[in-house]
């Protein structure tokens, strides 16, 4: 029986936010491997085994994707759209984790198939609490549709 590792793909360009997110995982004893992509292109490369990730084991798909919207190169909504339009990734849970509370951003995210939308609070304790809930829900409670990789 193959042990499926429940990895997390964190798409975040701000190093502070990256660190704070990782710290929040740690504070909440979430020890799953976190792969960090620093822009939209990197996230797509990881997911589809292209670019710098062309040699990676494509059997490994993240259990949940934490996606910021405002990203260099390819922005979050574009990344989301590509995830949803690929058979391999179309069922992956995508949680939008962003500073924006713009109504249009929320609407567009859900429209393109986001599973959840969380606004990063300024207060770290609230942020940490949100990460805790997020981890509990998506990594523990939620069941995934397992899709066989093409390989």
């Amino acid at each position, binding site marked *: 029986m193959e042990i499926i590792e429940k990895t997390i793909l964190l798409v975040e360009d*701000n190093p*502070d936010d990256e660190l*704070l997110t990782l710290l929040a995982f740690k504070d909440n004893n979430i020890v799953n491997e976190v792969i960090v992509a620093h822009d939209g292109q990197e996230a797509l490369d990881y997911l589809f085994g292209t670019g710098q990730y062309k040699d990676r084991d494509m059997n490994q798909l993240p259990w949940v994707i934490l996606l910021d919207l405002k990203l260099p190169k390819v922005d979050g909504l574009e990344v989301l759209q590509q995830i949803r339009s690929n058979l391999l990734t179309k069922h992956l849970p995508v949680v939008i984790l962003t500073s924006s*509370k713009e109504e249009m951003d929320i609407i567009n995210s859900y429209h393109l198939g986001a599973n959840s939308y969380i606004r990063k609070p300024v207060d770290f304790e609230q942020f940490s609490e949100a990460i805790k809930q997020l981890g509990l829900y998506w990594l523990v409670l939620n069941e995934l549709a397992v899709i066989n990789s093409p390989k």
Partner: protein
Amino acid sequence: MDAITFWWPGYRVSAMLLFITAVVSWITILAIYKYFPVALSLKTSKDFEAELIERKKSESKFIGLLESAPDAMVITSGDGEILMINAQTERLFGFKREEMTGKKIEFLIPERFHHKHTNHREGYVENPKIRGMGIGMNLFGRRKDESEFPVEISLSPMEIGEQEKFMVISAIRDITKQKEAEAEIKKLNGNLELLVVERTVELELALASEKAARAEMNQNQLRLAFLTEASNILASSLDYSETLTNLVKMVTPLIADWCAIDEVGEDGTIKRIVASHVDPKKIKSVYELAEKYPPDMNAPHGIYQVIRTREPELHLNISDEFLENIAQDAEYLSLIREVGLQSSITVTLLSRGTIYGALTLVMADSGRHFEEKDLEFAKELSLRATLALENAKLYKEIQDSNIELEQRVAKRTVELEAINKELEAFSYSVSHDLRAPLRSIDGFSNKILKDYGELFDDQGKDYFMRVKNASQHMGHLIDDLIKLARISRIGMNMEEINLSAIARLITTELQESNPERRASFHIQDDMIAKGDRNLLQIALQNLLDNAWKYSKNQTETKIEFGSTQKDKQIIYFITDNGVGFDMRYVDKLFGAFQRLHSLSEFEGTGIGLATVQRIISRHQGTIWADSEVNKGTTFFFTL
């Protein structure tokens, strides 16, 4: 003439009567005529005796008849010798019987007729018959006193006795009375005729003057009607050039043979802007004339002079020689002859001190000429035209300014849209980018306190707490600022809103957020207003939050939401029994980031009431407040 005709038959009747009388006399004479030979022939003594008696008898009978004739009877021989006369002859001529007998008949005729009369008499002897003498001629008799008198004479030939002696019997009648009457009648007729002529002349004069007056009246009426019609036509269009075209079209051919309007430009020169001609083919030439041969600016007559002096100019009659004199060249002369110029009027188009140009009316070769009185009419026409022109010009100005306004609005809209986009980008950036550093400040302060807390004393820990609080407060400020910006931006969806229901939901939440607080809420039932649900919800949330927040120190919080009516306007109010504020600072109440209480007393960003005010004004309402320190505050608003 009628009078003459009228009188004439009377005269004729009178003459006829005279004639009949004469004829009757002669019939008498003829009745006894058969006895004449008996009376004049003597045969035997016995016969003679009897004949003599008979003759005496008939002679006395004849003489009696002769004497009793009403006319003067003169019997003459064939050679004109007077043989016999009657008493009437004596009376008529004033001669004694013996003075006349044996004389030639000419004795009784004025001398100047003797020669003619002798000829007539001899002519009569050759062709004797009963007739009037000298019919149609004026005959005169001569009295003994040499005076003359008009007579009428009837002649009758007679042959007496066996010798067949030729004799003429003349019946002479004095027609002085008739002649006098005739003369009188003639005179009367003459007078009458004169009178008739005079009257006729008078009548004709009166008729002519009446006709002229009528013509004048007709013309005036026509012109008045024309002016009325002109006003109507001129008022029917607000288009500048259309108005002018209508005007010149209307004028020809009724008022003038051709017509032109010259406009005064900004540089003072004139330009022919519209023209008409009875002959449409010649309109081009009217323009050409003005274009090729513009009038002399300094001439003491012409359009420039009219515009300069504002006095109309009238040329009653322009001769061809005059045209030849003023013609600059052959082409000019041929042009001006083509369009025709025999009489003209030029008047200004002037209104409220502004000269728009000049109107020139011209008579070409229709034979009509303008007169002095036409000037008034031309002025009237120009006045109406100017008013119409002014209207058209004002309308054009309004239109132009409308277009300009529209363009400005469009430009502003574009600008506004750009600014709105910028604002959106800005608030997006604020909400996203400015919050990230705050998260870092708060987050790492938190980690320092948590992971390295033992390295700091209480003061050090307090400083980190302050950093953390400040960053969180700034986070709230940013959030509220974005909300405020969004409220001005988002579209409104107007519908009927139950404000009471919304307020109840909010107050329930407030009570639940702090269950131990003693509070009473009085919310008037079913306050229905028209507005945007989301915005009004935000406004009520802010107002009720404030009421809740600022009355937290009271032993029992009392909040009321109701409405009153003033001048058909519904005024809503939210009252609390909180700390209130000093009305001196009421001006600052609705300003963004303005606070009347310290953060330590009451938390807040100072954006809430600014947001409420913006929502109310987006609903065309107003908001104001009344407060007293430690007594409570009431906010009033309309929608």
